[in-house]
C-alpha cells in the first residue's frame, strides 16, 4: 500500500490529464456543430444553408436569349469564351425582372475593367494580349478603339 501512497502525486498528475481530457471532450461537444461529418469532413447543415441562398447569376444562356446580337458579335471575337456576367456582374435580378429596363446594369468602365486581365505580367502566356496601360492608351478608355464584345482592331473599331 505504501507504494501507492508514495506514488500518490503521480496519480494526481494522471488525474490532471484525465480532467483536461474530459474538459476537452466537453468543449468539443459544444463547439463542434451537430451536423459535422454527416456527409464528409465538413458541416452537413452548410449544404442546406448554401442551397437556400438567393441565386445571383443568371448564366450566359439567359443573357443570350434576349441579347442575341451581342452574342453573335461575341462569338466571332476573342472574347467568345468570356461569360457575360464576368464583365457585367451578376444579373439574375435583371433577367427575372418583369421590367428588365428598371434593373439595367451600369456600363462597365473599360479603363478599369480591361486592365484587370490585360495588364502585362510575366506569368501570362506570351500569346495573351497584354499591355502597359499607361503607355498603350495614355489613360483613354479602352473602348475608344476596341469593341469589348469583339475587341480585335480589325473587327470594326477605329484603325
Amino acid at each position: 500500500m505504501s507504494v501507492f501512497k508514495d506514488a500518490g502525486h503521480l496519480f494526481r498528475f494522471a488525474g490532471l490529464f484525465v480532467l483536461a481530457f474530459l474538459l476537452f471532450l466537453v468543449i468539443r461537444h459544444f463547439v463542434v456543430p451537430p451536423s459535422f461529418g454527416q456527409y464528409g469532413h465538413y458541416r452537413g447543415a452548410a449544404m442546406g444553408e448554401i442551397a437556400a441562398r438567393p441565386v445571383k447569376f443568371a448564366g450566359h444562356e439567359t443573357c443570350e436569349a434576349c441579347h442575341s446580337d451581342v452574342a453573335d458579335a461575341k462569338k466571332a471575337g476573342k472574347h467568345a469564351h468570356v461569360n457575360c456576367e464576368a464583365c457585367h456582374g451578376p444579373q439574375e435580378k435583371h433577367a427575372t425582372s418583369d421590367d428588365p429596363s428598371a434593373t439595367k446594369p451600369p456600363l462597365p468602365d473599360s479603363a478599369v475593367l480591361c486592365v484587370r486581365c490585360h495588364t502585362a505580367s510575366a506569368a501570362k502566356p506570351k500569346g495573351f494580349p497584354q499591355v502597359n496601360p499607361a503607355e498603350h492608351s495614355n489613360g483613354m478608355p479602352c473602348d475608344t478603339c476596341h469593341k469589348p464584345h469583339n475587341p480585335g482592331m480589325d473587327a470594326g473599331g477605329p484603325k
Partner: protein
Amino acid sequence: MSGVEGFMYPNEYGLQWSILIVLYPYITGLVAGAFILASLERVFHVEAVKPTYRLALLTALAFLIVAPLPLQLHLGHPERSPEMYFTPHSTSAMAMFGYVYLWYLMAVLVLEIWLDYRREIVLLSQSSKGLLRVIYRIMTLGSSNISERSLAIDNRAGWIVTVIGIPSAFILHGYVGFIFGSIKANPWWSSPLMPVVFIFSAMVSGIACVMVLYMAITKLRKQSIDMRCVDTVAMYLFYVFIIDFSLEMLDLIHRVYEADESFRSLNFLVHTQLYIPHIVIQIFLGTLTPIILLGITQVVHLPEVVRKRMYATAGCLTLIGIFAMRWNVVIGGQLFSKSFLGYTTYKIGLVSKEGLLVAVFLTILPLFILWALIKLLPPWPANTAQAPAAGD
C-alpha cells in the same frame, strides 16, 4: 512586376510563407535538440553534462511555449486554430502536428520537469511567501510527500519519461521535416532525407543553444564555467555536427548526381539569390567554421580561456548557420517557379504582422520566458555556488 524574372505562375509572385514560418522549424529544432542534450545525462548517464541538464529542460520548455506563436501570427484567422484539435483531418499533416506538439509539451516536457523539480517545489511551497507560495502550492498538486521512497519513484518515472521523450523529440522535429519533405510539388523540399536532416540539425542547434546559454548565464551569475561539462557538450556538438553535415552533403550529392528536371533551376538559384544565405552563411560561416573550430579543440590541447572563446564563437555561428538553413529551406523553396522558368524575390516587411520586428520579438521572447522559469525553478542548487575562477 518588380522582383520577378522570367515566367511565374500567378500564385508564385508573393511568398505564402514568411520569416515566421522560418522561425517555426528553428524554434522547434532548438526544443528537440535541448531535450536530446538533457537525455544524455538522464538516460545515457553522461555525468559531465549534468550542470546543463535542468537548464536544457527549461530551455526546451521556454522555446516550446513560443513554438506555435509564429504559426498563430501567420494565420488569417488564428481563432480557428483550435478546430485542428476538435475536428482533425487524418490527411492534414499540420493537424497531426498539433497532437505531436501537445504530447511533447504535456506528456514529456512538463511531466519530466515536474518530476525532476518536485522536491524543490514542495520545499519552496513551504518556505516562500505571497503569490509565489500560491504558485508553488498549485505546482505541488496538493502532495507534499518528498519521502526518500517517493523521490526514488520520481526518479524512476522521470527516467521512463525521458526514454519515451527521446523518440518523442525525434518525432517532434522529424515531423516538422516531414511537413516540408512530403510536399511533392516542391523539388527543393520533397525529399525523404528531409526529416532526418531536420532531426540532426535540431540536435546541433539545441546543443549549441544550451552550451551558449550555459556559458552566458554562468558568466552573468559570476560563477566559474564547468569546463569538463562544456568540453563534453562541445564534443557531442562536434560529432552530431559531422553527422548533420554529412547528411546535408549526401542530400546535395544526390541532387547533383540525379540532376532531375528541377536541377538547372535550383542550381541557378543557389548560385544567385541564395548564394549569400546558402553558400556563405549556412555552409561556410555556419557549418564549416564551427566544425573546424570544434575540431581544433578536439585535437589540440588549448588553454581554458581560448577553448571558452572558441566554443562561444562556434556556438553562436552554429545558431546563425542553422537559422540560415531554415531560411534557405522555407524561403528558398518559394523563390523559384514550379515551371522552372522564373524566379521571384522575398522582401521582408519591418513592422507588418509577419515582419522583421515581430520575428525578432519572437526570437527573444523565449529568453524572457527562460528567465522567468529560472527564477521560478532555479536549475542549480544554491549551496553549490563556486567562487569565480581566475581569468573568467
